[in-house]
């Protein structure tokens, strides 16, 4: 792991409570030490990143190191949030991994066009989900060199 002052946090945006629960369980099962935070739609995601509304108290906290993003969400969906994040110089460096049920080619093309870093289709079984989170953790938290935090 990189020698950062604080360990990287991961933010997962998904409106589906069961999926949040499963990912949380899988995260624990994968024995990943990094904190996993949740937001429930695209608007809350943007509030979280801008430290607004109910996330205003996070003002002095560092931004998440990775965002796991569902595509189909109410209010503001993952595609819109993705576009906004990638258009924003302060946020565009945060790696974004799409985690969705959609296998539509259209969605895959669009996500990569908008600058997404990976596109993962939610696995069916819990065991596969654990595999995915382990792999994600190993790749993004151990192998990859992430941009240094702006202090």
């Amino acid at each position, binding site marked *: 792991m990189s020698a950062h002052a604080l360990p990287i946090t991961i933010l997962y945006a998904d409106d589906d409570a*069961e999926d949040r629960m*499963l990912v949380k*369980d899988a995260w624990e099962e994968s024995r990943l030490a990094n904190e996993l935070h949740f937001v429930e739609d695209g608007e809350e995601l943007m509030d979280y990143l801008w430290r607004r509304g109910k996330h205003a108290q996070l003002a002095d906290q560092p931004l998440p190191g990775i965002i796991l993003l569902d595509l189909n969400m109410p209010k503001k969906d993952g595609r819109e949030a993705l576009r906004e994040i990638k258009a924003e110089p302060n946020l565009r460096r945060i790696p974004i991994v799409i985690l969705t*049920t*959609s*296998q*539509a080619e259209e969605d895959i093309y669009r996500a990569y066009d908008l600058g997404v870093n990976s596109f993962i289709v*939610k696995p*069916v*079984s*819990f*065991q596969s*989900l654990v595999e995915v989170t382990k792999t994600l953790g190993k790749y993004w938290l151990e192998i990859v060199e992430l941009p240094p935090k702006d202090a």
Partner: protein
Amino acid sequence: MSSISQLGAELERARVSADIGHSDAFYHSLVENLPHSILHKDLEGRFTFANRKCCELIGKPLEDILGKTDFDLFPRDLAVQYRADDLKVLQRGQPFETVEQHVTAQGAKLYVQVIKTPIYDAAKQPLGLQCIFWDVTGHKLAVQELLESEERFRQLFDQAPVAYHEIDCNGVVRRLNRAECALLGFQYSEIIGKPIWDFVADDERVRSQEAVRKKLSGEQALVPFTRDYVRGDGARLTVEIHEKLIRDASGTVVGIRSSLLDITERKQAQEELARKAQELARSNAELEQFAYVASHDLQEPLRKIQAFGDRLNAKCGDSIGDLGLDYLGRMQNAAGRMQVLINDLLALSRLKTKAQPFAPVNLNAVARAVLSDLETRIERLGATVEIGTLPALNADGLQMSQLLQNLIGNALKFHRPDQPPVVKVTSSLAEADQRSCHIVVEDNGIGFEEKYLDRIFQVFQRLHGRNEYEGTGIGLAICRQIAERHGGSITAHSEPGKGAKFIVTLPLEL
């Protein structure tokens, strides 16, 4: 020398000579050289003079003509007519002009224009009459032909099964036939003399009027078009109209002749067809959309059933006991099957939503690629797959691959337990037309009863229990859709225990 120039010479001589004797010669020459026949008769109808042209026409020298009558020289019926006319002239003392029939010496029938004039002596006593006549057969025949031709045209026009009308430069109907009266459902007298747009549907009247004006002035070309009319009984009619400009002898446009073809039914049928096609396209699109969306949205809860089933098994397996675990396993299993069904349905809907345009495809290459995909299965089963020479055709390459994969896959799957599968893929030209080919996939497997033939190509129809052979029953349904999308068909021959033979027929030129 022509008679005209001879005449000119005579005239010249007459003009320069003061000798009265020359005047006789002048008249003699004039009479003898005229292209007209001149004949004199006395009161009894006896010929007293005939000029040269007349003698030629009768075909006798003058001495054989003098003193004869019409009855001696011409057929009796003509002679009677001539004599009657002669008497009329003599009685009235007036010149008389008519066209007579005549017969030449050679027997040819002629028409002659004749001017008969009474002749008097110095005491104004009638001596007889003079006939001047000339051949007008050509003119007469031409006129007659014209009349006949006009009559033929009139009959054709009037009795044609196609509705015709002619309008003048004001759009007024000047001529129309029975078929048009029948078509428009009005009496002849109700249409003739009225502007044609009186019969055009209200919403097209202005356009009709404008179009007629432009066509007459040459601003608009005459091309077939459709126009709506309203029949006498109020029914709306759609007619296809073909037009021609009518010109007078000098070439000036004086009107338009139109033929009208009732296409109301054709138009209604076309509209109906277009509406049906649109409806069908919409319903197809909806269905495809539905299958796609449903498949995606149906996946979601299934995924949850499976994932939480996993969790239940892992976290609470100990407390629910063996029976509980068995139930759980069955639930998980069912959810898994449902997932496969949905994926299959999705695959079927993708045949349309993800269809690629046709391009040249070499089926040999496609078959080789399919075999390499199936390689492990072929090895595991100890199977033999023989590929004959396959044609190249215009097709969706991915779908051709799917077609062969499903058929060869089936041939491998439904093998007899005691015998390794032998699969043959061959092709032949269709005997019927030589323009399509058969792709045949033949195996030595378990076969099936042909009474199930229709069933096996339907979605999710299976002939075996899930325990015997895996699969949802989508494969052949996909094959059928692919064959049909390519303008072809699929069928099969089989007997239980004797292998199966699947035949795909595809057109070679698309």
